[in-house]
C-alpha cells in the first residue's frame, strides 16, 4: 500500500488534532474553572469572636463575581474551621493545597495559627496573604507573603509606637507601664519601655499582672502613689473591662494626662456598648475608625453591606477591626491578578512587591518580606461618648485619630479633662 503526500498530510493533521484535543480541552476547562482561594476561619474555640472575618472574604468574593470575575473566572472560597487550634492548621492547609487545589491562600487569624502554616506555604512556594498576624514572616522571609494589617516594618517591637510619639509631643516625662502576663502584652510592654527610655522618659512603674486577675484596685492605688503622667496599659478584653471600671470607681492620679495604648477589647462593639462613656479620654490602638481622614474608597459601602450580614450572622455589628482587612486581603490578590493578567504565583507576587495596591483600607506598599512599608496603626481617643448606644460609634468624632499625623482627625484632650 502506498500513501500519497496529501493523504499523509491529512493523516498527520488528524492525529495531531486527536492528540491535542485533550490538552486543549483541559486548558479550556481550566480557564472556565473558578479561581479558588482557601483559608481557615476560627469559627469555634477561643478565637471564635474573629469569625466575622468570613463576612469580609464573602463580600470581596461577591463583589468580584458580580463584576464578572477575574480574567473571566469566578472566585470560589474554600473555608474550613481551624477550631482556634494550631495543631489543626497544617493538615487543613495541606488539604487546601494538595486536595482542594486552591490557587491562593489567606492565612488563619493571628500569629500563633499562622506560624504553623507558613513553612508549608514556603515549601510549596504559595502566595499567602496574612490576616492580622504579627511578625509571622520575619524568620522565614517567604517572598510570596503579604500582610493585610498595618503593623508596618519591625511591627513586633514598634506597632504601638504612636502612643509614645503622642506622649513625647505632650512633653510627658514620667510613664508607668502595666501589662498582662501574656506574650502579646509583655512584648508590647517591653517595646514600650525601650521606646520610653530612648525618648528620655522615666519609667516610674512596670507592673506585670497574672492574666486571671479581675480586681485592679491595688494596681490602680499603687499607680496613684507613683504620680505618672502617662499609663501604658497592655491588656486583654476581661482585664481591659475590669481596668476601665476600676478607673471610674477608684480613679488615677491627677497627674495622668495620657492613658491606654495597647488595650485589646475596646475595638469590639460588645465592649464599646458595655463600657460606654467610661471609655472617654482613653487613647487606644485601632485599625479603622469612621473618621473623615479615613474615608478610603469603598470602605463605607463595605461597612453598610457588612452591617446587614453581621445582623444575620449575629456577630460584631460594627466590624471595624477585622473584616475590612479581610476584604483588603482579597483585594491584594485580585489587584495583582488584574494588573498582571495572570494567576501565576510568582508573577502576581513580583507585581505586588513592585507596585502599590489600592484597597478599602487605603493604599498599601509592601517591603521585601511583605509587611507594609509604613506603620499605620491608629492611636484614637474616645471623646464625647454618651450612654451605651453602640450606634454612636458609627459617627465621626467619637474615636478621634491622634496618630499617625497624616490621618489625624482631631485634637488631643488630656485624660481628666476628657472624662470631666
Amino acid at each position, binding site marked *: 500500500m502506498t500513501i500519497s503526500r496529501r493523504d499523509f498530510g491529512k493523516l498527520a493533521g488528524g492525529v495531531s488534532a486527536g492528540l491535542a484535543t485533550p490538552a486543549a480541552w483541559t486548558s479550556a476547562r481550566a480557564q472556565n474553572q473558578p479561581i479558588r482561594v482557601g483559608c481557615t476561619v476560627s*469559627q*469555634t474555640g*477561643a478565637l471564635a469572636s474573629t469569625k466575622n472575618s468570613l463576612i469580609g472574604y464573602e463580600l470581596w468574593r461577591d463583589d468580584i463575581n458580580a463584576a464578572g470575575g477575574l480574567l473571566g473566572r469566578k472566585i470560589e472560597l474554600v473555608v*474550613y*474551621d*481551624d*477550631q482556634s*487550634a*494550631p*495543631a*489543626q*492548621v*497544617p*493538615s*487543613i492547609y*495541606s*488539604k487546601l493545597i*494538595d*486536595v482542594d487545589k486552591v490557587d491562593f491562600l489567606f492565612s488563619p487569624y493571628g*500569629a*500563633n495559627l499562622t*506560624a*504553623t502554616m*507558613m*513553612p*508549608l506555604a514556603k*515549601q510549596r512556594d504559595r502566595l499567602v496573604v496574612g490576616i492580622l498576624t504579627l511578625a509571622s514572616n520575619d*524568620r*522565614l522571609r517567604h517572598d510570596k507573603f503579604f500582610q493585610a494589617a498595618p503593623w508596618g516594618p519591625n511591627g513586633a517591637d514598634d506597632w504601638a509606637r504612636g502612643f509614645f510619639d503622642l506622649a513625647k509631643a505632650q512633653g510627658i516625662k514620667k510613664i508607668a507601664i502595666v501589662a498582662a*502576663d*501574656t*506574650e*502579646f502584652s*509583655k*512584648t508590647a510592654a517591653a517595646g514600650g519601655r525601650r521606646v520610653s527610655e530612648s525618648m528620655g522618659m522615666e519609667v516610674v512603674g512596670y507592673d506585670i499582672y497574672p492574666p486571671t486577675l479581675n480586681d485592679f484596685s491595688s494596681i490602680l492605688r499603687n499607680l496613684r502613689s507613683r504620680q505618672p503622667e502617662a499609663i501604658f496599659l497592655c491588656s486583654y478584653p476581661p482585664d481591659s473591662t475590669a481596668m476601665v471600671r476600676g478607673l471610674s470607681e477608684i480613679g488615677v492620679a491627677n497627674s495622668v494626662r495620657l492613658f491606654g495604648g495597647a488595650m485589646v477589647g475596646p475595638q469590639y462593639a460588645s465592649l464599646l456598648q458595655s463600657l460606654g462613656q467610661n471609655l472617654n479620654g482613653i487613647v487606644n490602638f485601632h485599625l479603622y475608625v469612621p473618621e473623615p481622614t479615613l474615608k478610603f474608597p469603598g470602605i463605607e459601602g463595605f461597612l453598610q453591606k457588612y452591617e446587614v450580614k453581621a445582623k444575620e450572622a449575629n456577630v460584631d455589628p460594627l466590624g471595624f477591626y477585622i473584616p475590612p482587612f479581610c476584604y483588603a486581603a482579597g483585594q491584594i490578590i485580585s489587584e495583582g491578578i488584574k494588573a498582571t493578567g495572570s494567576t501565576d504565583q510568582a508573577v502576581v507576587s513580583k507585581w505586588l512587591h513592585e507596585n502599590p495596591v489600592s484597597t478599602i483600607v487605603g493604599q498599601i506598599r509592601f517591603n521585601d518580606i511583605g509587611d507594609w512599608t509604613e506603620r499605620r496603626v491608629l492611636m484614637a481617643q474616645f471623646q464625647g461618648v454618651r450612654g451605651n448606644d453602640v450606634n454612636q460609634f458609627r459617627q465621626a468624632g467619637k474615636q478621634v485619630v491622634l496618630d499617625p499625623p497624616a490621618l489625624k482627625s482631631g485634637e488631643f484632650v488630656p485624660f481628666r479633662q476628657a472624662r470631666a
Partner: protein
Amino acid sequence: MRTLPFLVIAALILVGGLFLPQFVGNPYYFFAGYVVLQYVVIATGWNILGGYAGYINFGTSAFFGAGVYVAAFLIKAFGAPLPVQILAAGVVGMLLGVATGYLTLRIQGVYFSIATVALVVVLETLIHNIDYLGGASGMQTIAPPAPAWFGGQTQYVFCAMLVLAVVAVVAARFIERSWIGRSLRAIKASEPAAEACGVPTLSMKLVACAISGAIIAIAGAPYAYYASHVDPLSAFSLTIGLNALAMPLIGGTRSWIGPVIGALLLASVQQIATVTISSEFNILAVGIVLIAFVVLAPEGILGLIADLKEKLRRRGARP
C-alpha cells in the same frame, strides 16, 4: 492472637507504612495519618495506667506537652535530630511519670485524677514563664530537610509516628501478658487484696506511671517538626486529655487492641469531620459517642464483641 502472628502483622504494618511514601504522592494523607497514629500512641500509653491499673489520668496533655517541649528545646539548643528528640522525650516522660506517681499514687480514685490535672496547670504555667522556649506565644521549630527516602518532612514524621505506634502497641501487649499486667489487673480489681497477695502495689503503680508517661511523651516529640511551631495552648490542650480518655473507653480498656480500635475510629472520624461537616460536630461527636458507650457499652467495642460472641455461642449450644 498468638505472639508470632502478632509480631508478623506488626512487622508487615511497619514495613508497609515505611514504603507508603513511595506509592502515595499526596502529602495530605500523611498529615491526617500522622494525627490518627499520634492518638494510637497516646491512647495506648494512657491505657497502661488507666485501663490495666484503673488509675484514671486526666493529665495526659502534661506528658504530651513535656514531650513537645523537650523536642523543641533540643531543636533550639543543639539542633538534635528527631530520633534523639524522641528518646529524650521518653526519658523525661518516664521521670515525670515516676515523680507524679510518687507524689499522687498514695491517693486513689477521683482524688488521683484531680491531682493529675494539677500537673497540666503546673507545666503549662512553667512554659509560659520560660522565655527561651517562647513563653506564651510559642516558638518556631522549622525542621531541616528530611532524609531523601521519605520524600518530605510530613512523610518523615508520619513514618516516625508509625514506628512509635508499633513500638507502643507491642510494648502494651507485652505488659498486658506479663507479670506486670497481671499485677496491674490485680490492683484494679482490689488494691488491698492485691497487697495481701504479695503484689508490691506502689512499685507496680510507679512502673505503670513511668511506662505510660514515657509512651505519651514520645507521642509529643515529633509534633515540633509536624507543626513547625510549638505553643503551650496546643501542647497542653484539653482535647488531647479528652481524646486520650475517650479512645480507650470506646475501644475497650481491658486489652491492648481496645485503645488501638478506639483511636483509629475516633481520630479518623474527627479528621474527616474537620474537613467535611463541621468542627463543632467534631467536638460534639466525641461527647455523644463517649456518653453512648459509657451508658450502653461500658466495656467498649471489645465488650460488645465479647457479648455478641457469647450470645452466638449460647445460641449454637442450644439443642
